C-alpha cells in the first residue's frame, strides 16, 4: 500500500502539490508513481522562469526502466528546481514527499489548488 499524505493535492497523472501560502506550491510525484517507475537515474527539471499551464509536460523523470513525463499539476512560473536531484535522483524513490520534491511554482491561478484530487480521491483512482 503506498503512502498518500492527506495534506497534499494530487493529479491523476501522479503528481502531488503542497501549497505554501496563497501564491506558491511545491510539486513532486507520489509514492505510488515512484514505486511503479522504480530506481530513478535521471531527472530533467524545468529552469526557473519557465511558465506552464496546468497539464503541460514540464519535466521528465527516468528510472532504469523507462522515461516518464511529468505534467504541471497547476499553472504558473517555476521559481526553483530541486538541484539535489542532479546527483541524487534516487531521492525521488527514498523520500518522494520530502527531499525528492521536483520544483516550486508561483501559482498563476491559486483556485486550481482546490480543484486537485484529495488523498482519498487519488487513492480511489489507483484502485480503479
Amino acid at each position, binding site marked *: 500500500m503506498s503512502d498518500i499524505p492527506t495534506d497534499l493535492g494530487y493529479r491523476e497523472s501522479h503528481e502531488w502539490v503542497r501549497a505554501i501560502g496563497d501564491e506558491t506550491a511545491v510539486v513532486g510525484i507520489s509514492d505510488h508513481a515512484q514505486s511503479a517507475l*522504480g*530506481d530513478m*537515474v*535521471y531527472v*530533467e527539471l524545468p529552469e526557473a522562469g519557465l511558465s506552464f499551464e496546468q497539464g503541460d509536460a514540464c519535466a*521528465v523523470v*527516468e528510472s*532504469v*526502466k*523507462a*522515461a516518464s513525463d511529468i505534467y504541471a499539476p497547476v499553472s504558473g512560473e517555476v521559481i526553483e528546481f530541486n538541484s539535489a536531484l*542532479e546527483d541524487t535522483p534516487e531521492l525521488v524513490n527514498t523520500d518522494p514527499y520530502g527531499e525528492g520534491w521536483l520544483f516550486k511554482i508561483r501559482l498563476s491561478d491559486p483556485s486550481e489548488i482546490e480543484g486537485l484530487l484529495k488523498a482519498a480521491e487519488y487513492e480511489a483512482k489507483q484502485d480503479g
Partner: protein
Amino acid sequence: MTRKTALHDAHVAAGARLVDFVGWEMPINYGSQMDEHHQVRTDAGMFDVSHMTVVDIHGPQTRDFLSRLLANDVAKLHTAGKALYSCMLNEAGGVIDDLIAYFMDEEWFRLVVNAATRDKGLAWLERQGAEFRIAVTEHHELAMIAVQGPRARDKVHTLLEADVVVELLELKPFNAVLHDELFIARTGYTGEDGYEILMGAGQAVSVWNSLREAGVMPCGLAARDTLRLEAGMHLYGQDMEEDVTPLESGLGWTVALNDERDFIGRSALEKQIAEGIQDKLLGLVLEDRGVLRPGQKVITPAGDGITTSGSFSPTLQKAIGLARVPMAAGEECAVEIRGKLLKARIVRPPFVRNGKPCEGLLQGLAG
C-alpha cells in the same frame, strides 16, 4: 488471459511486481532492480525464465535439419551437452529468432528459443522440418531457473549430490549435463558465470526455495535486461529483427560461411557481403547526462544510425546502449534525446564482464 509459471505463487510471496511479458505474468522486480543487478554482479541472483520455449528435435535427420535451419554450424557440436548460439534466418537473411542448440546425441538436439517469438519460431521449425525425418516436441512441462553471479555455481552445488557436483566442477562454459530430471547448462544472459537449470515444473518451487535458503536472491526481468545489455548481449526484437541480417547486427561471428553448407538465408548473406554491408551494430556510452533508450537517433560523421537497446548501466553508472550505425562510423557521435543532441561514444561491447568494467571503457569513463 496471461499464463503463469510454476513459480508464480513463490514470486507473489517474495513481493514481486508482476507484469505481462509476451502473455506471461512475470516478475519485473522484487523491489529494486538496481539491487538485484548488483547482487548478480557481486554474488548470486536467480531468474524464473520458465516462459522460454524448450523444444527437442528427435530423429535420424536431426543434424541435417539443423544444418539447414541454423546460420551457425551444428557440425561444431559432437560431445553430449555442448551448446551453440545461433540465429535462425529467413530466405532473405533476416533473423527469425536467436536460440541455443544443445547436442544431446546424434538423434536428439535440444533448442531453447525466445518466448516472444514462440509461435512464429515453432511454425518455421515445423514448416522447414517437414522435408526431414525429424519430430519436434515442445516441453510445456518444464520450468527453467537461471542462477547467475560469481557465487552462483558454488551455491547451486550446495544443493546437489556429491557425484553431480564433481561433474559440474568439470563442466566447461556453454556445456550442459543431464541428471535425472535436471538439465543443468553453464550458460546465461548476464555476463556472469552460472547455470540455467531446466526441471520438471513440479520440482520448481522446492528448487527455488532451496536456492533462496542458500542465499540466492530472486531477480526480475528488469535486472536481467540491464545485465544482458552491460554484457553486450543482444535482445531479439530490438537488436535483431526479421528485416535485418546478423551481419548488420553484430552477429557475424555466429554465421558459419566457411564451407558450402546450404543453410536458409545463406545466398542472401553472400549477396549482402558482395554488395557491401552498410551498417554495423556496436555499443554506445553516453557522455552527457541522460538515459539511452531504444529508437533514438544517432548522428555520426558517416551518417545517421539508431539505438536498438538503451538503459542506465548500474555498474558503470552511465547510460549505455547498442546502436545500428553506418559501417564507416568511428567513435564520435551524438544522440538526439527529446530534441537535444547529447555527446556519446561508439564502443565495442561488452561493457561489463565478470563484474568488471571492460578495458578501454574505463579510460573514457574516468574522463
